[in-house]
């Protein structure tokens, strides 16, 4: 066994390359810039493309073009950039363009604090599109997760033809740590589903039993249409309200109905514990310390670390919270994901610990919240 040193951002870049990502475009922004820097080192020598956009809108626009050209694509930014991405995020959702979007969250609102962390974009990522359609958001807790979840993110983007977010945080992204590359989870790589041969290609036709339309690249031998307008299966504007309703319903259902397959988490159950600590992202690390300490002190708590935040893995949450009376939700904001937990667990006591001042939630704070009855 041996370790190497890596930042979360570098681990995301390596994960992307391992997933077959060959196109990256981004605009410099702290604390996401080192993803761009790393992709610029990794991609061009292996025949890939890494571009610096003239702004964030262009960066994600390049990615959408390249994705329709058949490449696996990624972009990375922080809160201010995600705001500018919004219109293109809606496009990628509605027109089913695979893309991985990394949000290295920093303290907001607005330009906020460039070099301080937060998990302040968690609801924004979910609702930052103009139709309110569901998205996939994965949340790493450390550099190892950054690597593995990036591969999952590409697999999901390709399979479901949708944007997949990685909700990172300055505190993971630019924190360096030891990583055992050989021990990391390396999911099998999934490619975009191509249509079976024989039938004429209809760009948005979705035979029952598959999640998203088959994909052929723009620029191949078969003519492909892509459009941001409300479209029918043929990729032309439609005004047929039945067809529109079916389309919206499919976009909603394709992710929500499948979330059980990609509900990533860590769970540390403790016999007899009446409290479950539920958290995600960087705060999960303090929570792991708390779990160990409480166990040693003889007053154990269970711990659930969510790595899939959206769609909300409701079944998982209900199942893991079933034995406890009380759930303590800790997150680096003033109360975002806790709303989902309250919604999913209406019969449990849900206590909340939030912090949004640029500093990490400490194990001590979590213990105080647990012990404060």
């Amino acid at each position, binding site marked *: 066994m041996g370790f190497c040193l890596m930042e979360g951002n570098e681990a995301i870049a390596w994960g992307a390359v391992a997933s077959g990502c060959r196109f990256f475009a981004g605009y410099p922004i702290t604390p996401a810039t080192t993803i761009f820097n790393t992709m610029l080192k990794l991609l061009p*020598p292996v025949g890939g493309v890494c571009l610096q956009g003239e702004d964030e809108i262009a960066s994600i626009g390049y990615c959408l073009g390249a994705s329709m050209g058949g490449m696996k694509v990624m972009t990375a930014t922080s809160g201010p950039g995600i705001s500018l991405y919004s219109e293109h995020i809606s496009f990628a959702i509605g027109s089913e363009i695979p893309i991985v979007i990394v949000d290295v969250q920093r303290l907001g609102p607005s330009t906020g604090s460039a070099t301080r962390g937060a998990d302040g974009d968690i609801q924004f990522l979910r609702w930052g599109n103009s139709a309110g359609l569901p998205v996939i958001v994965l949340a790493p807790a450390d550099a190892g997760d950054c690597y593995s979840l990036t591969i999952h993110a590409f697999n999901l983007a390709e399979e479901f033809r949708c944007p997949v977010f990685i909700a990172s945080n300055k505190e993971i992204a630019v924190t360096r740590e030891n990583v055992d590359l050989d021990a990391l989870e390396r999911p099998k790589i999934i490619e975009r589903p191509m249509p079976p041969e024989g039938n004429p290609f209809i760009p948005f036709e979705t035979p029952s039993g598959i999640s998203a339309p088959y994909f052929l690249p723009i620029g191949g031998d078969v003519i492909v249409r892509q459009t941001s307008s409300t479209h029918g299966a043929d990729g032309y504007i439609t005004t047929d309200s039945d067809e529109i309703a079916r389309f919206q319903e499919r976009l909603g259902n394709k992710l929500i109905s499948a979330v059980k397959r990609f509900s990533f988490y860590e769970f540390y159950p403790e016999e007899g514990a009446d409290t479950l600590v539920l958290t995600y992202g960087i705060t999960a690390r303090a929570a792991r310390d708390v779990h160990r300490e409480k166990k040693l002190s003889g007053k154990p708590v269970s711990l659930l670390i969510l790595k899939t935040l959206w769609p909300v893995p409701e079944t998982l949450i209900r199942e893991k919270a079933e034995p406890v009376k009380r759930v303590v939700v800790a997150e680096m904001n003033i109360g975002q994901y806790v709303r989902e937990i309250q919604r999913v667990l209406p019969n449990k006591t849900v206590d909340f610990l939030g912090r949004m001042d640029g500093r990490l939630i400490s194990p001590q704070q979590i213990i105080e919240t647990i012990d404060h009855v």
Partner: protein
Amino acid sequence: MYSLLNADRPPVFCPGCSHDRITRALDRALLDAGLKGEQIVIVSDIGCSGLFDTFFNTHAFHGLHGRALTYATGLKMAQPELNVIVTMGDGGLGIGGAHVLSACRRNLDVTLLVLNNFNFGMTGGQFSATTPWTSRVGSGFLNQLERPLDVCRVAASAGAAYVRRCSSYAKNLSKEIENAIRFQGFSILDIWGICPGRYTKRNRLTPQIIEESLAQMPAVDAPIPENQREEYGRHYRKLAAELRPVPLPKKIEAQFEPPERQRRGVMILGSAGQRIITAGEILCLTGLFAGLQTTQKNEYNITVLRGPSITEVILSPDKIGYTGIHRPDVILALSQEGVARRTAVFETLDNTALVIQAPEVTVPSCKAKIHTADFKSQKIKSADWALAALAVLAKMNRVIHTRMLTAALNFKFKNKILESSLELVERVNRAEQAPK
């Protein structure tokens, strides 16, 4: 006659709209250029020009207002053989101005057809970036306050390799379009036209007036000699081919037993320019050589050369959870402003803690053991204090030892820098040994 026009979806423009002429001229141009539908993508913007992709049996990409050039760029980089043609109105030109400028600067082989009819047709004839200030438009008096943009002069000065203006009514319109498509690099064709649906309801504009106005415009005649250069995509691939693939970061196997096999938190408090972050990384590497796990959390101002710089390193035999340090075991106090950022932490120190203090840095009174390093008389400059302080720590056999540190330096540095850093460690070792 063979045509790329989609027989099932004929153009639907208002009667007399010059977009209709451009549609047919584009079809002609594509055929004359010898292109088949699958060799072309029409990337259309928003507005009436945004309908273009639907009339052709070619690949099609219709996206958001003003952003057509961004998709075109991604498509062309992904599919270098594809002929990428963008149709955009004067509206898209305005809202997507930054993309137009960078397309000009970049010279990727994309053709931009500006369907310039001096107003926003689809939304009610509001003024655009090209509306004359004398026109009567759907934006009240506002256009009287702004000057119209000559996209050709802007494009030429932004570095576009091929720039031309023409009328939708030009007899050789299809030839104009074909020339722009054939050009190997970014080409922009500013096609002036008439929007009877909106603009000419309140403004007089005829093919004749367009012709006369064009004649009065400053000449731009593509290709622009001073802007000729290699096409971006080809140039990109040429430069990329010279680069060597980067190997995965090297693994470090444990080689030493550390002086202390416990979780240890080290804070280095310094200033920009003192290579604090690099010292933190070296400390992490030092830990890896003793089989320890490690995290490094940094704090610095966004101004690179000024302000405090702080790094917090944890070394631990176990997996590290929380990356903050509540009570450090060691503080390397290397600048006053660095210490000022963490004043409160000194109160947490107990008598097992160690503070290594650089010359002229004072720390708040605390229970820790204070060791003042005499870097000044050793003639060590401030930029090297962080590494020198690590050498002191190693010499004291606290958290790390000198063999661990030397291994980390050998791993991290090469040649001159390696030599000088090893020499520095050696010098500190000698000085720390000498009786005070």
